[in-house]
Each structure stands twice: as C-alpha cells, then as structure tokens.
C-alpha cells in the first residue's frame, strides 16, 4: 500500500509550526509518532494535502516539573514516558497505562499527545490522565488556551481542537500527600491489544487511612469517550477505603458505563468487567497511596 501524495513540512520550533499551520489553508494533518495517522493514510481513511511534522520541535519532547505540577511535552513518546522517574514514582496509573499501550515497537514511536488527539474510545492514556485531572495546552499562531482533557475529547476521533491548533503539552498537578492511582485493562491477548474495557482511578485521602477526600473513576472502551463515573466517585467520597467500598463503587461504575455488543464481547460481559476492573483499579490506587507514603518515610 502506498501513501497518498502530500506536501511535507518540518518546522523546528512550535512557533514556526503554528505559523505554517495557519498559512496553509488546505487539508492538513499534524504528524507526531505516525502510528495512527500513517496507517489511516495508507488505508485511504485520511488524505491530507499537507503534513506538518513535529519531529524536530525539541521543546515538545521535554518533561518538566515545577514543584506544583508536571508538564509532559506532547511529543514525548510512550516509551520515554515510562522512563520518567516522576511518572514511575507518583503517577502509577499513567505508568501502567503507558506500559499496556500497543507493543514495544509502537511505544517507541507513539506520542502522549497523539494518543490524546486521536480520541480512540479504547486508548490507554486518556483514562489515567483524566483520572489525574490533566489539563492540556493548545497553541496556535495567535495565542494559546488551556482546557481540561475531560472536556477536550468529544467522541470517537473527535476533539475540540480547532484548525491551526497544536496540542503542545499535558499538565498534571502534583498528586497530594496521601493519594494514588490505578489502571487496569482487559483484552484478549497480552500485547497489541485494543481494550475490551479499561478503568483508571485516582483518589486522595485526608490522612494515612482516609477518609477519601476526592476520587476520580474513568471508564474506557465502554462509551464514545472515556467516561467519568460520577456515581462511583460519589460513593467513594467521604468514606474510608476498603474492599467493600470498592465493590460498591464498581457496581455504581457499571451503571455509568454505556457498553455495546460487538463480535469481541457482549455488553453484558463488558458491564460486569467494568465492576471488576473498577474494584481492581481502586485497590491499586490504595496500594499506591500506601506505597508513596512509605517511600516518603524511608
């Protein structure tokens, strides 16, 4: 299969990239890792006249921490994300999600920003990012805006990105003292697998053993976009974390999911798996919260 013909642009700065994008005026796509875009172009599902590669824009490949928040450049690859100390230590849900995305080959190319803007319902990074309350930066020629990731994804393959805009970075607030996150994915095989269901969780505790002050539960692959389970979050908030509570939260999450029947699994099975995966991901979050606290005292 051949790629259709296109003009190729290779800016070296974000500013230059934004300027090129605003000047083209013809169908244009932004190329980051290419693991989604190039496949779709080969299949004829996308045929942009111009490709603006972000491969040389070095400022998009950096991760920076400023005490209050962690900023991940949009072109940091999924494999690089797994190597970041901060991610390993303080964002376990995201760390797990990055490890379960595709295969090593895909993780070496695919970028964090790409996994967001493609807005696949089964994508591995948006649920944990939303669970950690991520915001994103969108840059264009004459300005920039910041919005929450949760509001950004609108439907399968649909986001609120505007023509000329580039997703430049993802900002995660430093998780509070007593907090943790989790991510559980269910697929039929161990790698290169599109989730049947995935669940990301995060909660912050008042003190070492609770109660839960704030909780986020995000369900993937059971709706057109990642879904916040507000019912599960409500059940968790103000309660002390334990198995019974997690179980109740799982039941509630299943009520918020909108799974479909397809040839891979029935809606009924997916719904049951939402219960199970929510419980497991909450348990992971609690384990991480305990681990982070222990690490601080060490």
């Amino acid at each position, binding site marked *: 299969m051949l790629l259709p013909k296109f003009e190729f642009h290779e800016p070296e700065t974000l500013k230059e990239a934004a300027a090129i994008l605003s000047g083209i005026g013809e169908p244009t796509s932004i190329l980051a890792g290419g693991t989604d875009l190039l496949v779709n172009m080969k299949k004829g599902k996308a045929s942009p006249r111009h490709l603006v590669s972000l491969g040389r824009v070095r400022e998009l490949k950096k991760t920076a921490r400023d005490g209050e928040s962690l900023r991940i450049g949009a072109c940091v690859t999924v494999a690089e994300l797994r190597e970041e100390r901060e991610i390993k230590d303080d964002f376990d849900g995201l760390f797990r999600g990055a490890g379960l995305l595709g295969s090593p080959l895909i993780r070496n190319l695919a970028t964090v920003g790409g996994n967001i803007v493609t807005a696949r319902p089964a994508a591995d990074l948006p649920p944990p990012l939303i669970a950690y309350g991520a915001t994103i930066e969108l840059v264009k020629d004459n300005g920039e805006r910041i919005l929450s990731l949760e509001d950004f994804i609108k439907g399968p393959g649909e986001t609120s990105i505007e023509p000329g805009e580039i997703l430049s970075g993802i900002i995660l607030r430093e998780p509070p003292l007593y907090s943790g996150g989790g991510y559980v994915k269910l697929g*039929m*095989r*161990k790698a290169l*697998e599109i989730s049947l269901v995935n669940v990301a969780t995060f909660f912050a505790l008042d003190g070492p053993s609770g109660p839960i002050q704030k909780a986020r539960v995000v369900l993937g692959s059971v709706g057109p976009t990642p879904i916040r389970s507000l019912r599960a979050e409500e059940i968790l908030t103000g309660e002390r974390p334990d198995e019974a509570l997690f179980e109740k939260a799982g039941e509630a999450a299943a009520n918020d999911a909108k799974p479909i029947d397809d040839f891979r699994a029935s809606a009924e*099975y997916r719904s049951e798996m939402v219960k199970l995966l929510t419980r497991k991901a909450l348990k992971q979050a609690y384990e991480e919260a305990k681990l982070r606290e222990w690490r601080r005292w060490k």
Partner: protein
Amino acid sequence: MRVYTTIGQSVTKVDGREKVTGRTVYAGDEVFPDLLYVKVARSDRPHAEILEIDLSSAKNIPGVVGVWTAHDLPGANATGTRIKDESVLCSKRVRRVGDPVVLIAAKSLRAANSAKESVSIGYRDLPAVFDPEEALRPEAPRIHESGNLLFEKKMIKGDVEAALSKCAYVITNTYRTQRIEHSYLEPEAGTAYMDGKKLTVKLPTKHAHFEQDELAKILGLDRKDIRVICAPIGGYFGDKQGLSPGYYAAIVTRLTGFPAQMVYERRESFEVSTKRHPYIIQMTTGADKEGHLEAVKVDILVDTGAYASYGPSIIGRGVVHAVGPYRVKNIHVKGRLVYTNNPVCGSMRGFGVPQVAIACESQMDLLAEAVGKDPFEIRRINCLQAGEENASGQTLKASVGLTECLGEVERIQESLPPHPREIDPQYLTGWGLAIIYYGIGLTGLPNPGVAQMSVEPGEKVQLCVGVGDGGQGAFTTLLQIASENLGLSQGDFNLLSADTLTTPNSGTSTASRITYVVGRAVTEACHHLAGQVGKKVAANWGVMDLVFEDGHYHCGVRKISFREAVDTLVNEKLLAEGIFDPPTTPTDKETGLGSPYATYAFAAHAAQVSVDRETGQVNVLRIIASHDVGKMIHPVHVYGQVQGGAMMGLGYGLLENVIVKKGRILNPGFRAYLIPSSMEVPEFHISVVECPEPTGPYGAKGVGEPSLLPTAPAIHNAVARATGQYLFDNPVAMEDVWRALS
C-alpha cells in the same frame, strides 16, 4: 546404532543467510522497467446477478493500460484445485463478497487503484444462504447448478447402532469450530513476463506444475509455452495454490505482452484467500465399563463457502481421521460438504483434521471422567499399537510410537515443579491432554515424489525437485538426505527447485509429505546415481564386486570417494531419477475403508492453563509436546515445527476467529483478527520419539501438520479440568469461560 554424518544434525539452513539479510527476492519484489500493476475489482455482494459493468471512467484514467471483463479472457473461465467451479472473472453472477469481476492493468499502482475504485458494477441481489444447515433445505437458493450439497463421504465399519445399545457408557455432544485465516507473513503475489516466446510466471506456490496446467487452460496456451517458477515462499500453511495474483498477472502479460505484477493487500488477502473450514460435528462415543471404545458415530457438516476449492479432499481426510488414533470396531462417520455464500474455505495446515481432533479428544476426556480413569489411562488402553487395525481397516505394520509419546508427556508432566499460578487464588489451573495421528501423503491417491540428479566432472552435483520451501526447511532437509547418501555436504550441491522448465513434478507441498515422499525420492535418485558412477569405477578398476558405503566405493583395500570417482569421468554427464510413490489403496466408495496412507505420524500434547476466576481469561502456561516423527533429519527444524505448530494450535484454540456476518468478514486484518503474539508463547517441553518408518528416508515421516493438531484439544481439556466445565465451541472464548464460571 548407525552413525550418520549429517542426518540428525542441525546443519545451517541453506536459504537462511539470504533471508535474514533481506536478499531473498519474493514474487512481489521483482522489478522491470515497463512493469504493469494489476488490480481486480471485486463483488461487494454475497450473491447477485451482474446487470451491467461500466468501465468508461476507469479506462480514462491516465496510466491505465487495460480494463477487462470475462469476455476479454484469452482462455477458459473456470478454475479450481479440485472442481472447476470458480470463475477467473465473473460474467453473470457473483456468489460471494470478493468475487473477481474486472481486471485492471496500469503503469502505476496509484492509477491501478483509482481505476479499481472507478469501476461501476450494477447488480441485482439474489437470495443468499449463509448457514450450512439452511443451505441443505430444499427451498434454499441454489448456489451452483449441481445443488448445495457438494460432496458426501462416509466411513462404515461393523454395526454402530447395535454396539452402542450394548455400551456401558454412551456420550454424545455437538461441537462447533470456526473459520480461521492462514496469516502468512507474505501476502499472495505474482509476477509474469515474456521470456522469448515463453510466458513466465513467478509466484509462491505449493505446486508449480499444477499452476502450469491450470494457467495453460486459462491463458489458452500450450503448457510448453508457459513456465512457472515457484518464487521464495513467505509462509503458506497449506494455502497458496490455484487462482491468485500470479494468474491475473499472467493474463495481463498474455493480453499486453508487458511484464505484470500483482500483490494482494492484506485486507484483500483476508477477504479472498481460503479459510480453515468451520465444522459442526455431532459425535457419539460408546465404551464398555472399563472404558474400552466399542463404537463411534460421527456426523460432520462442513460449510465450504461459495466454491469447492480443496473441500472434497479435506472432508475426505476429516472423515478418515474422525475417530482418532484409536482401536474401534464399530464406526459410522458421515461428512457432508455444503455450498453457502460465505467466504471460501480450503486447504490449511491440518487439512480437515484439527476440527475433528477437538471433538474426538474432548469425548475421550468425558469418557475418562465417566469411567473414572485418568486421561493418560483412557488413551493408553484404547490407542493404536503396531500390528493393529485403524478406523479405516488398515493394519499399521510399523512406526507406531503413540504409546511412547504418551509416556514421554506423562513423564515430563510429573517431573515439572508446580507453576506459581497453581497457588495464586486469582486463578484456576489445570492440565489437559490430547493425542492424534495423521496420515502422511495424499488420501488414498497416488502421489509420487520425483527427484532428478546429475553429475559431471568438476561440477557440483545437481539436485532437482519440484517443490518449494515454505520456510520449514524443506530444501535443507532434502540436501541432508542427498548428502548422507553420497557422502557429500550441502556445499557440494546445486539445488534446483519447483520450476516447470528445469525440475520434475514432485507433487504438491501438502499433507506433510515433502520429507517422507520427496525425501525418499531423493534417496532413490542417489542410489541410481551412485550405481551409475559405480559402474564406471568398476570398469576402471576391472572389478565386479564394488561396494558403495559411507560415500566411498570399496573393493578390497581399494577405496575412492564419490566425488573423486565423478571427477575421473571424462566429458561425461550422468543423470539419475528417483521416484517414490507411497503404497496406498483408495478408500472404498461405499464403506470408506482401505489403506489411505502408507504411514502415520503420532503425537501427544499436554497443555497447562490458568483461568482467571473473575474474567474467564485463559492463559496457556506450559505445553508438553511429544511427536513420533520416525527420524529427525534436522532437529532444530523439527523443534521449530513443533513450537510453531503448537502456537498455531494455541491461536486456533483460544483466539483466532474470522467473524462472518451475511457473507462479509467483519475483521479482515490483524487489528481485529487476533493471532498469538510473542507474549502468548508458553513454556515449552518437547520430546521427540523416533519410531522409524521402514519406507521413509532414514526412517523419517513428517511433522508439519501433526505439530498443531493436539494443541487446541489439549487446551479444551485443560480448561475443562480447571473449571469443571466443558465448552463445545472453538475457540474457547474468554466470555464463554466467564459465563461457564458464573
């Protein structure tokens, strides 16, 4: 024990270096300056009448050289490996999604693709049938003139009903299996060009000489004006014979005179290539109170899709193997092959046997449970021994290593430490066992292997065989057999393979027959060649009683090597041919009894699985595989076949499924059609049993297909042991296991 110089040694793979360094030129890699790119516009309907075909806009696309329909074909518009029921291009009617209608050639791939998209075909939809049971009803739409029941095959011995009425245990179940895709790395491809007056076609194929005959009819040429060269094969797993890109490229070359090339895209390959047949199997197993099999009754209904392809041969083999490697006096097996408007099924590794093995081995475990015997014991008391009669009434004279295979699997299983998951409360675990046998060579048909050799002074020995190498190591193995016979090594030979101009017809690369049949033909050719050279030596020495041993001619103390002897010939070229046709008898038309194969390979696999109590997810933790291959010619290749085959069996048992809805494939690509990844590879324990086959080269039989057969049934039995629930559908789907548990 006899000591060999190369047999039993894992010598360097003769085509290995070329492949790992990327220098191998596959059919789709051929380059010509004036090459035409070929595409085929296909039906998007499962069953329809063609009303009109509009080619005007396709013809006007710059770079398009030709756009043709059935009316423009140069020869016969009927093809097929067993029955000529398939059109090269459909003219009046399409019978499945993907049926070929319009042929396109262009100077660029881009132009060919645009032309393909701008072809407009007007259809009138016809009632279609997608279910084999419905297809048999009288009111069902007829897919071919001959009716929807394409073929029926029976095997009858003794009196099943009478025997069943006396059995202490009678177990009946219905099993369903799915379609699967071969998933070879190299999609189908072909390049054609004129070489002087000869139309030459390079394509990966199981049988170059078959393609030559078929192309002669389709191209309207004499077969001597066509040369078919088997290009390096990037995997075939039983497929790659018959109508394929090489045929379309050849038609374009015939029509235009220009070189032409076609490569299927992966999606096209998924939609158009044949699949493994889905079976509906009803099996009744009857045994006495000790668990000795008394009677087995099997009814097999097979959906072959819109065309016959290899279907009749596959059901023939399926029926012969339906009872498994057991001693049973009363048998009634019926197999029916039915046309539907579904994707076409055809030849795939295992050739109709993987399906029945699942039913047969599940039944054996159910019987074991009912009788209260363990899975090893129930098989041990029923499985075939040398000197006994199999289901088709053939006495197996020698090389029956099944009891040894069972013993090896049991010994290894007992020696393994517990798996960590056995004590993890999240999982249920269990071991499952399955055994199989598999006839080597075509079912009850003559299938001679032919090898030709020639030598002349100072030159390499030339070995010509009409088969290709599908990656399994056929070339290396055949050269080992030749080397051992003549006391030479790999580098002393020049191998010519699967080329209708330069090699003999050695039959098709199917039925696990290359090592056994063609290998034995190589041995025969070597004997003839050594004899001819020996005559010259004897004449030179003026002696009568010359002995050829260990690559040397001996007479008393005089000794000369084969190579030296050849080099003393003056301006002389010696030729020799070896033929081996395994002794078989056709099966009886009424009873299906006979001696369909000269020899059988045997195997036992045990699989240990874990089942997630909450999700139903099954993971295979360990596979123990023991195979009686007669004699290992190349151990690394045998182990490679066993591991690769078992992984294919694992995919069959757990993951792979071509989902078809109203004749359309819903998952025509590797994104949604899941084959095992490297992460699914379990811990392997392999033990090879060498129970020599007297008619095989150095005692060898075959291993290509036997390697995959016991894996899926072993997984079924393991899941049943772990969960206490038998699942009668293949693959064992995660959700079905979850349902069984909850």
